């Protein structure tokens, strides 16, 4: 069911509304909140949210007779609607990163009030999932991010193998996931792909991940399909290895995200813009899972071009963790 949860007018008098899709389960069911579109250019999440809405709508309408909605599910496909309309990460009116604007304000600038409205709408939920992509200029292999290592067991319901702990840093307190975490919600970020690009294969992965979560956690039931808890590779924040360039120039990737790299394996090259000569070969300092890779070629010296999740103290959570 589509429901307006925020409405205001533009200075020219047009209506600007935000909507959520909401499906109710039996009385006393738990609630799952799914949010995408915190940034106007993180499109894989939007696509996945859209597919989920259609799928849940089909169940509610009886077009998926083997499925049943058994919990409360609310989907917020877009938060920063003005930024989405512009095709930018943030809205040019205030240049405010919506995922640095939580908890927002009841009365304030529009982005702050949007954030406030979304937080208010989701605050009573038991679970929260944010769908997004890598930061601008990078691409992410599909993976889970979470603040609390205590959620490892629950993260297995998301059917993605790689889980990354979010390092604490001061501005984290302004992000939705931290606000949810502080409210006691079990919260995750699912990230896949590149800003500004819709990659159907990546949004499919996000869709399937959330679908599996809903089946295992009890928001959906199916006559035969039960969902499954997957083996999980959990990487603490301290195990992340960021690879920096030594030279400025054009970075040309020679690896792909989602691959395991061995020590000294080539990640990419930095070439001189004018001569085309290779200035540097960026290699893996440690063996690890290539989770993030630079896609925009121009780089400064000391620019991060890749993030490896390494196996120091790596833990696997399967099957009895």
């Amino acid at each position, binding site marked *: 069911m589509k429901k307006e949860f925020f409405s205001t*007018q533009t200075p020219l008098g047009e209506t600007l509304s935000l909507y959520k899709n909401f499906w109710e389960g039996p009385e006393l069911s738990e609630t799952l909140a799914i949010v995408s579109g915190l940034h106007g250019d993180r499109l894989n999440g939007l696509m996945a949210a859209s597919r989920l809405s259609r799928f849940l709508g089909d169940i509610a309408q009886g077009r998926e007779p083997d499925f049943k909605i058994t919990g409360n599910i609310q989907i917020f496909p877009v938060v920063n609607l003005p930024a989405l309309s512009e095709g930018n990460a*943030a809205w040019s009116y205030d240049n405010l*990163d919506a995922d640095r604007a939580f908890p927002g304000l009841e009365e304030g*600038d529009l982005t702050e009030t949007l954030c406030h409205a979304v937080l208010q709408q989701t605050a009573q939920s038991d679970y929260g999932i944010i769908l997004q992509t890598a930061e*601008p200029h990078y691409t992410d292999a599909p993976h889970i991010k979470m603040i609390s290592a205590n959620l490892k067991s629950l993260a297995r319901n998301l059917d993605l193998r790689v889980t990354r702990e979010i390092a*604490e*840093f001061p501005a984290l307190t302004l992000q939705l996931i931290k606000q949810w975490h502080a409210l006691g919600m079990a919260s995750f970020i699912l990230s896949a792909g590149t800003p500004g690009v819709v990659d159907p294969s990546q949004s499919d992965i996000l869709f399937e991940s959330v679908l599996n979560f809903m089946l295992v956690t009890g928001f959906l039931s199916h006559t035969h399909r039960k969902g499954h808890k997957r083996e999980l590779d959990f990487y603490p924040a301290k195990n992340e290895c960021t690879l920096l360039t030594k030279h*400025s120039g054009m970075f040309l990737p020679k690896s792909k995200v989602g691959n395991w790299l061995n020590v000294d394996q080539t990640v990419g090259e930095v070439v001189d813009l004018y001569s085309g000569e290779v200035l540097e070969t960026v290699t893996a300092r440690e063996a690890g899972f290539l989770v993030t890779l630079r896609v925009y070629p121009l780089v400064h010296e000391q*620019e*991060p071009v890749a993030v490896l999740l390494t196996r120091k103290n790596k833990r696997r959570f399967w099957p009895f963790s």
Partner: protein
Amino acid sequence: MGAPVKVIKQIFTAFKGRPVKRVSFVTGLHGDELEGLVLCHRLIQALRQLKQTQPEAFLGDIHIYPAANPSAVNSATRLWPFYSEDMNRTFGQGSGDSVPVQVSRALFEDLKAHSDLAVDIHSSNKHLLELPQIRIIENFAGTLVPLAEQTCADLIWVHPMAGLFESTLGYNLNLAKIPTLVIETGICLRIHPEFGDQLFHGMMHWLNHIGVLAIRNTPAKYIKAPRIIYPNQVALAMARQSGLFVGQARLGSQVKQGDPLGQMLNPMTGDVLEEVVSPGTGLLFTLRQLPLVYAGGLLARVALDREPEP
């Protein structure tokens, strides 16, 4: 591409011996806030002249960083272009390895190594015009208010801590036991020479007061005690409807509750949506400049003469 990112500082050292104190001025963390660049220019110009004519006046060290975010200053943008990163949200441990964060880290370490006191100068965003003021998080008020009282600003606003401050330069320097005053003045992308004059003389007066300079030439007209206000002394006028705000009050004026501040207009229909009036009696210290406003947007702040009844 061959153009390095360099954060440059000007250094004025004590005339002889160990400096009594070391003070740093930082501006340009947001590249569209230009009032601080003018203030730093005025300070550098005056201190260079003083160094030539009266070098013994320097009892302490002064470091001035006129453009802490040179990429953003060159583009006149609030955020670090390309990364769209707000540099004043990148301070503190664990903020990553991006180029803006590396620059923030280097700036912070340099400030820590060379400062006993610091001043971080900002203008407002593109929406609001501010009287020269010092903003102080209440946790640090005990140390900072006595310092701020000597800056000749119009206001000292002591406000509560909030999450967004945790990643700012000012908060992190104060946390590192380097008392840091945060100035807000004017509006981005514009220069207000009268505010620049006031703050320039205020900073020279302050440097003298804290013993870093030994001079006595602050024009009397600039010496004033700022009004100190606490959270319950700030009254806000917010837009009840979206529209076009046309202000009619003057920033810095004394207003009474109910005095007209402006009108909210509907530019499509010609209707006056709202007569905006002062929410209290006191000093009008913030006034909206960007007319396009959404419901809930801030239009004005008034420093109340008297605390409201509980």
